[in-house]
């Protein structure tokens, strides 16, 4: 797969039985209507939970029906991880003189 694929697209490719199905699918298209099995999206959701260690909420689950939505979930989760990391390490960072 080429580099122009979005992170959501690349992630989804790991979980669909048939990658051909999502070639050329627009970002806002419903993936089930595009031919994906609902099970593919469940596996994707579980993988996202596994990656971040926290359950997906209803809004996030609903967003997984489009490639744009998957990207949004990935972006917001990465942002949350960065925030969590920043909140959990200030003492160490300050001690080393890196936090300003």
């Amino acid at each position, binding site marked *: 797969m080429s580099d122009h694929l979005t992170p959501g697209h690349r992630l989804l490719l790991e979980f669909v*039985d048939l990658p*051909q199905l999502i070639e050329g699918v627009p970002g806002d298209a419903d993936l089930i209507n595009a*031919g994906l099995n*609902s*099970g593919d999206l469940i*596996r994707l959701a*579980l993988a996202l939970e596994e990656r971040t260690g926290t359950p997906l909420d*209803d809004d996030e*689950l609903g967003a997984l029906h489009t490639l744009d939505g998957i990207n949004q979930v990935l972006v917001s989760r990465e942002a949350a991880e960065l925030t969590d990391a920043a909140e959990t390490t200030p003492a160490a960072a300050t001690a080393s003189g890196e936090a300003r």
Partner: protein
Amino acid sequence: MWMAHFVKRNRLLRPDRLALTDPNHRLTWREFDERTDALATALLERGVEKGQRIAVSSRSRVEVLELYVAGGKAGVVVCPINPSFPAPEVEHIVRNVEPVGVFSEQQVFDRLGDAFGDGWRVPIGSEEYEEMAATKARELPLPRQDDIFAILHTSATTGHAKGVAVTHRSVSACYTAMAAEVGFSADDVMVNPCPLFHGSVVIGLALFASGGALVLEPEFTPQRWLADVAEFKATKTFLVPSMARFVLRTKAFANADLSSLKDIMFGGAPMPQELLRECLEKFPAPMRSIYGITEGGGPIATHLFRRGEWPFDAEGTVLPTAGRMLPGYHIEVQDDSGNVVPTGDVGEICVRGDGMMLLYWRNTEATAKTVRDGWLRTGDVGYADEDGFLYLVDRCNDVLIRGGQNVYPAEIERVLATQPGVLDVAVVGVPDDEWGEVPVAFVAAGDEPPTVAALIGACARELASYKRPTAVHFVDEIPRNGAGKLLRRVLRDRLAAEARAAEAAKAEAARATGPATARDDKVTAGTGGGGACSGA
């Protein structure tokens, strides 16, 4: 009669209690009875006559059950259609049942265009629908128990789905059995994550008839299932094994409140014993196998599995029983001639009782093959022990079950065989950790072989997503016997041998960490295909 009767009775007994809910609606028994009376009247005022068919194609939502019951009250036959079907599958069902009208969600109408035929169309949830549900109701004659209530389409050996005609009597038989054996009562709340076009709908209807409340989920997600069980303090649920596996894997499981659950029913596909063991360990309720078949009226046998109790042997291995016959569903193991085989001998599982389908809609030949001398031949091969416990060992047709949905290879082969460059084709079911089984295609191609994308594209256009092959293997020749009969076993064995070789290589590579020894026995609580051994 039944569909009208049980709603009226529950309205009289518990008018203000919750009957039915989905994410957007909550209806009491009084409201449900009134709306379905109105819808039944509205159907007749549209000119729909008793015995005519209406199609309902939607995700699970309150209106779908309203239409089931309204149709039942009006004597109109309801034909559910999977809303994710592609146009050719819908067109086949529409040709078969010729619905005078269709209820569906607007986005399904938008997608499927004219596949629904020439009848009128009413979008579910639209103003038009709500006007129908507010029609001034009039007293309607009670349908008879042997009137057809619904036609449920199942995958078939012929390559095209068959319509299973289910009567009011059949649905009431399921209620009687489940109330008696499983203890369905008015105090129950059941979370139903399965689609209402699936054969398992009769289990939800049975609990509903008992006066319990039904919680519908538009689509299954493990997170939503956990939330609904907690929110509604569900006492019962029904999961196919793949769903149970997903529930156990989701992060929300660790903190979920499942303490209200009394009975977790499972079926639709064989349950791997390791998964059953994990379910018993992690769920706070026993697991109940439901062995059933759409043509038999749904569940026909059951067994309640409790942690540490029989049927586990001394080593903790599950004895893979499908359970014992439910009341009203008499089961025998018969040979091809219809004779009962001795206890412990292998034969075809056959059932008779009020739950049996009336017939395959407009398919006399298939009906004659499947119903013989009053017995419904399930197509499942197995044996019974001295205590009546059933054990399934094989199928006498080619059906494979993916995530609780029956798939006949012939349906997929029919599509692939027409693609340019394909000389011969065969599809087999192969074991899969998540789905139980998945279809895999073997294609013998000519000088200009088709691409995998072209083959998959054809399947995507013509078949439901769960019927698409998960892999395509190109081979020189499809194995057939002298009479031209496809030798699927040869292909299955070839795949199994390749899988074993790969496993051996993996084990060799991981020798330092020790080999895996998990067994792969399955608790056979699936649904059979409904074919006849000697005829299919």
